[in-house]
């Protein structure tokens, strides 16, 4: 067993309100500098930057988690994060199928830029990603867990777009963990592992809320086992 620094909640240039030059490569390089072992990318309602992220993590030797931050129909943010890229891309496609189309407004939300595996800006998503899908909270959690992903209600102590602000309570579901901005003892008592995540939308925010967790080894499999394995192992 050992202690490893993880940070599953990060954005890139693809996310609304993230900086245009905040590529998956910049995220990975800075996370490595900050001593992170396991890094997740979780753009809002899209997985289009995950291929670049995979390459970036390979180059700097980080364990990648391939994620997405889904906005549910209740406007609750949920992190879904996979050990492998293929099921993450399939999940992203399912989310996109349930995202109503509005054109993005660059002036308000910034550009939504896709990078390729060589680090070049190659495309721009025209659909507004900063809106809610038609997927229910429980439906997202359930599908994520069935597909072997981590399912984590995001920043549950935030005043907007969180399960506590929007539903008023935390439904009893087999979450992999819960994410908080500010750890407090009352969250520990909810019965789930409590994680923090940086929710970085720009370079300066990388690693600001990473957290340390005990794992059997430095691997994605060990993190999945530690969080999802609890349900049958504890």
């Amino acid at each position, binding site marked *: 067993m050992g202690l490893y620094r993880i940070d599953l909640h990060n954005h890139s240039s693809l996310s609304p309100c993230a900086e245009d030059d905040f590529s998956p490569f910049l995220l990975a390089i800075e996370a490595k500098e900050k001593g992170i072992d396991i890094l997740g990318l979780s753009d809002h309602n899209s997985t289009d930057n995950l291929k670049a992220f995979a390459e970036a993590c390979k180059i700097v030797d980080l364990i990648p988690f391939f994620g997405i931050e889904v906005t549910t*129909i*209740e406007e609750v943010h949920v992190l879904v994060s996979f050990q492998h890229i293929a099921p993450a891309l399939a999940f992203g496609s399912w989310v996109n199928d349930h995202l109503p189309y509005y054109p993005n*407004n660059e002036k308000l939300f910034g550009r939504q830029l896709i990078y390729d595996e060589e680090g070049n800006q190659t495309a721009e998503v025209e659909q507004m990603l*900063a809106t809610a899908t038609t997927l229910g909270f429980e439906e997202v959690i359930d599908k994520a867990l069935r597909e072997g992903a981590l399912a984590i209600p995001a920043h549950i102590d935030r005043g907007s777009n969180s399960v506590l602000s929007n539903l008023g309570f935390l439904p009893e579901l087999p979450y992999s963990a819960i994410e908080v901005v500010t750890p407090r003892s009352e969250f520990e008592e909810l019965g789930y592992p409590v994680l923090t995540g940086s929710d970085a939308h720009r370079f300066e925010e990388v690693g600001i809320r990473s957290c340390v967790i005990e794992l059997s080894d430095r691997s994605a499999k060990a993190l999945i086992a530690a969080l999802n394995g609890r349900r049958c192992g504890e």
Partner: protein
Amino acid sequence: MTVKDLSQVEGLKAHHVAEGDQAVKDIYCGDLLSDVMANAQEDSALLTIQAHKNTVAVASLLGLGVIVLCNGRTPPSDMIEAAKSEDISIFSSSANHYKTALAITPFL
């Protein structure tokens, strides 16, 4: 009525009143911004508890000139800054959406 006339409505506190005479022709009450996006009509006042800058973005996209925060919610400074740059006015009320709408309705 125009946004400026809202200053006369009892119980409303002004946090930012934009320049110009933006019309207020209707009221839309909603806390789910995706529902507001889908249903609010241009030139409505948006009555909501969503006191953050994304609400300003939604109002700007839809052409809603004023946001009224209900139930005693107050705008954070970054929301007021966003409202200034988008020429959107922000008021607040200690009353709920229904009572706030009732107070505004005679002025429409």
